[in-house]
């Protein structure tokens, strides 16, 4: 019974992980790569952001209602969505003149 329950939980965990779309974004020299991220509408998305710079950055978006500090040479996870079709700009608050990007929802 315990084995059965455990395997069910494992299947559930894999299903949840598989259901969440993961998008990788890199920060290099205070720029986002890619600067434009295209994701499907009405879908939860896990943004996996790697800050390759040695200095910290803050991922921020008023349109997405997201804000997160990412230390230098580290990674962070930010969940977004489900979103309606449209464009959702984001920026690096610590370098807001250069670190600019947007999520495009189709």
């Amino acid at each position, binding site marked *: 019974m315990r084995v059965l329950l455990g395997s069910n939980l494992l299947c559930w965990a894999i299903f949840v992980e598989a259901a969440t779309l993961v998008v990788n974004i890199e920060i290099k020299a205070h720029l986002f790569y890619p600067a434009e991220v295209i994701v499907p509408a009405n879908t*939860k998305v*896990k943004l996996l952001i790697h800050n390759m710079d040695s*200095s*910290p950055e*803050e991922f921020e978006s*008023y*349109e997405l*209602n*997201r*804000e*997160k*500090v*990412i*230390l*230098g040479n*580290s*990674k*962070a*996870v*930010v*969940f*977004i*969505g*489900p979103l*309606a079709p449209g464009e959702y700009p984001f920026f690096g*608050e*610590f*370098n*807001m*003149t250069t670190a600019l990007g947007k999520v495009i929802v189709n």
Partner: protein
Amino acid sequence: MLLDAVIIVLRETLEAGVLVSVLLTVGNRYKLGLRWLAWAFSGGMVGAIIYAGNMGLVSHWFDYVGQEVVNAIIQYSIYLSLLLICLFVASIPRISSRALIYLLTLTVALALIREATEIIIFYSGFIGNSAVFSKAATSGFIGLMLGLSVGALCYFSIMSLKPRHVKPVQIGVLALVGAGMVAQATQLLIQADWLPSVAPLWDTREILPEASMPGQLAYAIFGYEATPTPLEAGLFLGALACTPLLIALSRFISGKTLIEARTQ
């Protein structure tokens, strides 16, 4: 001048400044002196330095959403403290002055930890580059002064009110700030995928953009968000309603009337 530094320090100072200024009027009303504020600032700054120094570790917790969870806990804690302070301000006799001092100190320290941590991390990026650090520090000082000016304006606005208006304004502003903390904390848990994310209830970006100065001020006062989810809006209203409901309940239990015998 580094515009980024001005904006970051201004935003964080604004958020903490409004809250601290109202709490200062509470301390002033009960003649608590300023020693509690010194303790709160010392504790808050030490806490912020420790938190910033361990941000890498914290960020890895709970599958990389530890930062959201810890910040949400801090903000829910501030809300609970503010709720108790509101009860005190409303003259509930069961809380002693000493308890009020502890609550004020704790609230300001938590607010400082929340806001100063980001500033410390921002400036840590300039370590080793003294020229840029110096420029960022000067710019940050401008942001600090602007934020403190708004806090001072808030403080003197309340202090200049007629005595009978002071208490309702204090309770009203603290209840709004507290409810805003709940909304922000809820948003963080949605960001961490600990709470469900659904389509926003409304969109007021055209009327009041979050990035604008009035939008930032509204964010500092009641956690304004142009596109809140139903959960955020519901918890905001619930948290806001808790203050008058608990005050009414406490008065009912203690048999007190609305006209209090305290310092006015």
